[in-house]
């Protein structure tokens, strides 16, 4: 069929089953926006900043498992999208971003709004394309979606010059993808899997170390099964919260810098780490030479480059978690005695009783941890929780009772403040039946606060709970601990009127200072079903504990901070 390049882009999106596109128009991408105007197969959400468009597409992908799609214009539109690309790249999120580019004839001339999009985005995309011939466009669109969601998922950028979108050509959308140089490996090596299962049988103190890859591979059920019949103690990374379910007795908690005592001690004493889709991030391992010092390591990962990158691995298995765990279960099912690890479980239970995840509640002021627990009590399983970056993020990860994968959405790898609100918009578009709550800080929320307008216009009722400590709290905490309380540029006493700010954009605002008000506000917000800010005054100087100081060993935790 003859059609313009712009039409081809829309057709491709429709064939790929895209229902929602987040974006922002501009000169170089106007032809595509003209076609968007003419069609009604998919919805376009006009965010009020390109960074928010990309985070929204990202949140949509994390909540649904589908490929998120965002669209931006050339130059500044594209550079605004970069933080979103890098955020998705670090957390392996399937996403396609389409950017307009100046016409081919102007590329390289420093034309108006020209920037080298493929050059800039190369290190923070899984792959990228500059379309230089209309004939390539259908194939490139097909490949972009394929690459984004297969293997280790990630964002793909398609940069399309304006003249290509205007040109007419024949549109045949390829049925299959044939990239001879790209063949991700899914099935783990059988011999390695067998060896690994033997190691599990022999181990006295095995530990399942669960990462975000389990969520991405939709393998949570299987992993629960594996843990369950072996009765193997389990720790989760920040990205894996929800995989095991908060009530699971085999779950010790989160490990790492703000992990709980039992989890970090388990990692320090285990004799066999079974790593599933985790990547030994420095926020998890602490001092590498002390990490899992007494253990052999089984490492299952879809990305061979992750294996052996930081720690030495005894049983490397490249493959998709789902397929590998299926095989592991087959190997172990009738052949593992849960009693083997009984004394190990008892040791870990003692650790947990010694220093459980806790905090000192107060009657005078709302403790941020209390607020998180309270949200959990009020909405629990029904909600999807997104977050920004800082103390509130860690408290949410520590204290929210996550019960299922994809319930917890946060920027783990890049740690992007400003992620939470737009990601919540995307999650709500993808899962309209869920309550979506962004747990945020008074610093982070301002980094994409313009999305109040988007949320109002499109009636996307996201609840933003601002744990307001009038500080860039996480940085303030480090200044308290390690910089002798020199609070350089972290005091946020000067604030907007958050209630009025939300209301000026068509949302609702609540100012909360007591527990009663907190309950009322949250219940009211759920009932009203309009975008809102719940501005919660919390204890200003509360710290996230326990804490493994940066670069320290996991077993050296600060459990308490006394003034």
């Amino acid at each position, binding site marked *: 069929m003859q059609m313009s390049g712009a039409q081809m882009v829309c057709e491709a999106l429709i064939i790929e089953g895209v229902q929602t596109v987040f974006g922002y128009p501009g000169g170089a991408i106007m032809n595509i926006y003209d076609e968007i105007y003419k069609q009604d197969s998919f919805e376009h959400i006009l965010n009020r900043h390109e960074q928010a468009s990309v985070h929204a597409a990202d949140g949509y992908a994390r909540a649904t498992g589908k490929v998120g799609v965002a669209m931006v214009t050339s130059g500044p539109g594209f550079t605004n999208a970069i933080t979103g690309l890098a955020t998705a790249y670090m957390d392996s999120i399937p996403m396609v971003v389409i950017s307009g580019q100046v016409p081919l004839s102007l590329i390289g001339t420093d034309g108006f709004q020209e920037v080298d999009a*493929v*050059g800039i985005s*190369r*290190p923070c995309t*899984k*792959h990228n394309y*500059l379309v*230089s011939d209309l004939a390539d466009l259908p194939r490139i669109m097909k490949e972009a979606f394929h*690459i984004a969601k297969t293997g280790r998922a990630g964002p793909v950028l398609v940069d399309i010059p304006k003249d290509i979108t205007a040109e007419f050509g024949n549109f045949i959308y390829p049925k299959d993808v044939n*990239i*001879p*140089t*790209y063949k991700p490996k899914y099935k783990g090596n059988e011999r390695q899997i067998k060896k690994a299962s033997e190691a599990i049988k022999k181990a006295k103190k095995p530990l399942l170390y669960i990462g975000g890859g389990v969520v991405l591979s939709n393998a949570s059920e299987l992993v629960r099964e594996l843990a369950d019949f072996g009765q193997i103690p389990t720790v989760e990374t920040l990205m894996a919260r929800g995989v095991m379910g908060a009530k699971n007795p085999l779950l010790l908690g989160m490990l790492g810098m703000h992990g709980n005592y039992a989890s970090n001690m388990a990692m320090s004493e285990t004799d066999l780490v079974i790593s599933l889709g985790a990547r030994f991030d420095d926020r998890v391992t602490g001092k590498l030479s002390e990490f899992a010092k007494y253990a052999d390591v089984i490492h299952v990962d879809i*990305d*061979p*480059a992750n294996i*052996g*990158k930081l720690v030495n691995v005894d049983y490397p298995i490249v493959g998709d978690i789902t397929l590998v765990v299926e095989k592991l279960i087959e190997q172990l099912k009738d052949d593992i005695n849960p009693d083997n690890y009984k004394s190990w479980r008892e040791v870990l239970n003692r650790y947990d009783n010694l220093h459980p995840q806790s905090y000192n509640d107060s009657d005078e002021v709302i403790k941020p941890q209390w607020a998180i627990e309270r949200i959990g009590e009020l909405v629990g399983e029904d909600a999807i929780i997104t977050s920004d970056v800082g103390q509130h993020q860690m408290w949410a990860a520590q204290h929210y009772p996550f019960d299922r994968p994809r319930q917890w959405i946060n920027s783990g790898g890049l740690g992007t403040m400003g992620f939470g609100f737009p990601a919540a918009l995307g999650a709500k578009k993808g899962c309209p039946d869920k309550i979506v709550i962004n747990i945020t800080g008074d610093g982070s929320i301002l980094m994409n606060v313009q999305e109040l307008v988007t949320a109002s216009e499109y009636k996307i009722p996201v609840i933003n709970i601002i744990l307001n400590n009038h500080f860039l709290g996480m940085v303030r905490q480090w200044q308290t601990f390690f910089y002798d309380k020199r609070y350089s540029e972290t005091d946020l006493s000067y604030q907007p009127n958050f209630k009025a700010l939300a209301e000026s954009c068509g949302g609702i605002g609540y100012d909360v200072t007591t527990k009663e008000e907190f309950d009322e506000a949250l219940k009211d917000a759920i009932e009203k079903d309009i975008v809102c800010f719940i501005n919660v005054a919390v204890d200003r100087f509360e710290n996230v504990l326990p804490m493994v100081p940066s670069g320290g060993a996991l077993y050296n935790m600060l459990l308490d901070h006394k003034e």
Partner: protein
Amino acid sequence: MQKVRRVISVIVMNESSVLARVSGLFAGRGYNIESLTVAPIPESQLSHITIVTNGSEKVIEQITKQLNKLIPTLKVIEHEEMVEKEMVLVKFPIDANLSDIQALCSAYNGGIVNVGLDMVITMVADEPVRVKNFIEATKRYNPIEIVRGGVVAIER
């Protein structure tokens, strides 16, 4: 950890920006490039990139894995048993002792390839160590310019 020198061949799709992907990976992840050559593979849509690098075994392993991860990469060969050659062009003033220069080049399997009004150009293609020795030896004839071609290698 001890550093090792390694010659790596990367077979990639011959498409725009593929070299930028490869060199960008080295720059972005802090890997060394001692030399890099690239040319199309005859009668194919592929290019052959030869990289000489150094680093600890762990780093070298990451380099090959990261190179493999690039979408246009077909194959990465970490050379072990190989024939390795490098070419060098050296320009001398015409008043240098030409028969001495000719003899020196012959000793390194090379020769004079061009003679102009005021200069003579020689070429040598040999193992990288020998090329280095050759360049050392040319010094006494006051070379005007030395251009090295970078290493190419083929597995035996």
